[in-house]
């Protein structure tokens, strides 16, 4: 596809943050140990799985499984 414009990428980032917040299973997330909860909260705000996995002390793939369990979509 043609490359994204600045406006499109900004809109996609804003939409991504909103959809991650809306779809997250917050009840599940609140019950998690602090490190995992904070990692998911970071991911929901930034969409950055690498730093989130480091906060959680997990490999990126392990964090991805946690993301899915928490109902947070990748965007």
């Amino acid at each position, binding site marked *: *596809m*043609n*490359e*994204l*414009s*600045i406006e*499109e*990428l900004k*809109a*996609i*980032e804003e*939409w*991504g943050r909103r*959809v991650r917040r809306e*779809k997250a299973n917050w009840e599940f997330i609140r019950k998690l140990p602090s490190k995992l909860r904070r990692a998911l909260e970071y991911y929901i705000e*930034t*969409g*950055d*799985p*690498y*730093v989130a*996995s480091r906060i959680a002390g997990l*490999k*990126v*793939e*392990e964090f*991805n*499984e946690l*993301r*899915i369990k928490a109902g*947070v*979509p*990748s*965007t």
Partner: protein
Amino acid sequence: MRLASLDTCFLIDWALYRRRNYIIKIFDKILISEHVLREIYSGKTLDFVTELLSKGFMTLIPLTSQEEEIARRLITIALSDPRIPELHETEVYAVAIALTYNTIIVTENKAVLWLKIYYPNEIPQPVWRSIDVLLELVKKSVIKVNNIEDALKIVEEYSIDVKHSFSHIDIRRFQEEVMLWLTQQNS
């Protein structure tokens, strides 16, 4: 020969997709760095990666001082420009490999997308996301579609398998591209 350099996050997501093996029908060879392997642990993704490596569809690229230098340069740009999000080893080495071996970059990483927009001379290679790979599966007739509904079903399948949400912007752009392709096929 069409080569692709994949970053960790794309690969981990793609490995969950029911049609994951179709990726070898649109790329002749997939290149990864050892950083990608470090982030993988499960049977499913390991099976996928091991199969591609053993069949020669995937190659583990040793990093040299050239890729290290490219990576440092890109990280420095990202650090000095507040418009660019943080850039990590998982994606920066995928970009460095792409620059060295002249491949398509496949990533969902927003820092790479912003770098491509603001510093096009630093990343002249095409940057594809999963939606672009799905579109290519359609355009190369790897997955046969007769109409736009068939094509959208492919996007829906991927979203379900990977738990990935596509924005309305991406869906619209995908639809437009598929419609154009269908028109060309039928003319």
